[in-house]
């Protein structure tokens, strides 16, 4: 496996002189973090849907862009942990001020689908009592996986491999309560041989891993942070 000779994380790219590079970097950060931030505000800070939505917008458009990233030091904490601590401070200040903060200059960097995020809230299990860092981490993982599955589907469809994604989807994405089909059942349902099912699944899983690691590399600030996050996410340090 080849590694990039140099790595430039999204955090570093938000400081780029090139405006387009900065814009894409911000979009990547917001895409990865807005749902965890929104749900964290709803669950940890017990905010209502509207207030949490407003504060999420405010956090990303004003506070985060102006101050937070500039002060971030990769040597002191993971970006996710740092962001969560900043969010706590931000929410605490907002509560102390006893006011609903206005949206940051009516600027929305990416459209945030709060309605969908709110709909997902009902499906959370025991989240209120969860450790706050663990709660934020879990939502971050969920957002990362949702995006990565969407990417995998997009790649598969673009390459005419919809059957491969279908195998992956039915075997690895089986939802709660659904019994996981056997390879033989999948083969029968999809009109494939069991060997083809095995090969399709292996190919999709390899590509999924690659997508996850690429995104993870982008979202972390150093090789050490990347390796620690990858080990926690996919490896033995779960």
């Amino acid at each position, binding site marked *: *496996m080849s*590694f990039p000779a140099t790595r430039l994380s999204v955090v570093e790219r938000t400081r780029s002189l090139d405006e387009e590079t900065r814009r894409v970097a911000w979009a990547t950060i917001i895409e990865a973090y807005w749902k965890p931030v929104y749900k964290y505000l709803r669950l940890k800070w017990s905010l209502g849907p509207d207030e949490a939505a407003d504060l999420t917008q405010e956090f990303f458009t004003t506070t985060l862009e102006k101050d937070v990233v500039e002060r971030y030091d990769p040597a002191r904490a993971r970006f996710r942990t740092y962001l969560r601590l900043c969010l706590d401070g931000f929410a605490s200040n907002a509560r102390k001020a006893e006011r609903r903060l206005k949206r940051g200059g009516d600027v929305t960097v990416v459209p945030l689908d709060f309605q969908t995020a709110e709909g*997902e809230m009902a*499906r959370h*299990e025991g989240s209120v009592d969860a450790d706050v860092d663990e709660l934020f981490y*879990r939502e971050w*993982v*969920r957002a990362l*996986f*949702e*995006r990565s*599955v*969407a990417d995998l589907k997009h790649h598969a469809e673009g390459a005419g491999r919809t059957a491969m994604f279908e195998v*992956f989807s039915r075997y*690895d*994405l*089986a*939802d*709660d309560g659904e019994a*996981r089909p056997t390879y033989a059942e999948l083969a029968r349902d999809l009109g494939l041989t069991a060997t083809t099912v*095995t*090969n399709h699944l*292996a190919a999709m*899983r*390899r590509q*999924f*891993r*690659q997508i*996850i690691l690429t995104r993870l590399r982008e979202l972390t600030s150093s*090789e050490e942070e990347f*390796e620690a996050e*990858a*080990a926690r*996410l*996919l*490896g*033995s*340090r*779960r």
Partner: protein
Amino acid sequence: MSWISDRAIDRLRDAAAWPGLDDRYAITGVAGRGGMGTVYVAHDRVLDREVAVKVLDLADQKGSRAARLTREAHILARLDHPGIVPVHDAGVLPDGRAFYVMKLVSGRRLDEVLAGSSPQALRLDLFARVLEAVAFAHAHGVVHRDLKPENIMAGSFGEVFVMDWGVAQDGTADAEPAIVGTPGFMPPEQEGAHVVDARADVYALGAVLAQVMGTDPAPALAAIAGKARHPDPRLRYQSVEELSADLVRFRSQERVSAYQESLFERGLRFYRRYELPILLLVAYIVMRFVLMVAGGV
């Protein structure tokens, strides 16, 4: 993007970590997770047997972890001993992760055995087999450097396997600073050292023995464990064979080198060692005395 449940996330994490060796090894479960990799249970389709597959978590940029895993496989392949798990295959996955395939060991970890109520004699039997395996490795220039009950497997038929040779020192060539080992089992000289010798494992074995012998051990046995884990390597047993020999002497009710016994203790040990002949002799003398007295009457 559609909602992904917690359970689906767990499945996806497993899917992304999947080693994908399906042509030869059908993964059937996870046997355990270690510091740098996961051990899977798999079915070897070619040889039709169950095996264990140890896979690195990540292909690290420096390649040091991959090198370590590969070196572990090489060490295991070289150490052909009943107490050391045999390796069957090794390689690198398409995504760069190193792996190796080994015998699937079934049984319990020694710490789990020790948590139960097994008799001391049985525990010492297991420990003696550990000594044999470690002595064999030392004879081949390999120092384990992380011996502890969690790294020892005991099978259902009394067999013992010393596991996890990932931080072993093979000769003196791999002068990697030894920030390895486990507090409580790691000798003082191992911390930060580039090279340790067999006495580092003797120390760890002394710490293991302290757990094996349980509470309230015989003073001689406690002395053996104490000598094995003396902070000064010069005052320890100088080899596993020396430790083993003292343990054999203890179990045979002979005098051990680690313990200076009193006259009473020596007499007691002598009695225990020759209990039956002594009792027969006493019975004989008593009978003769009774007969003599009766004959006199």
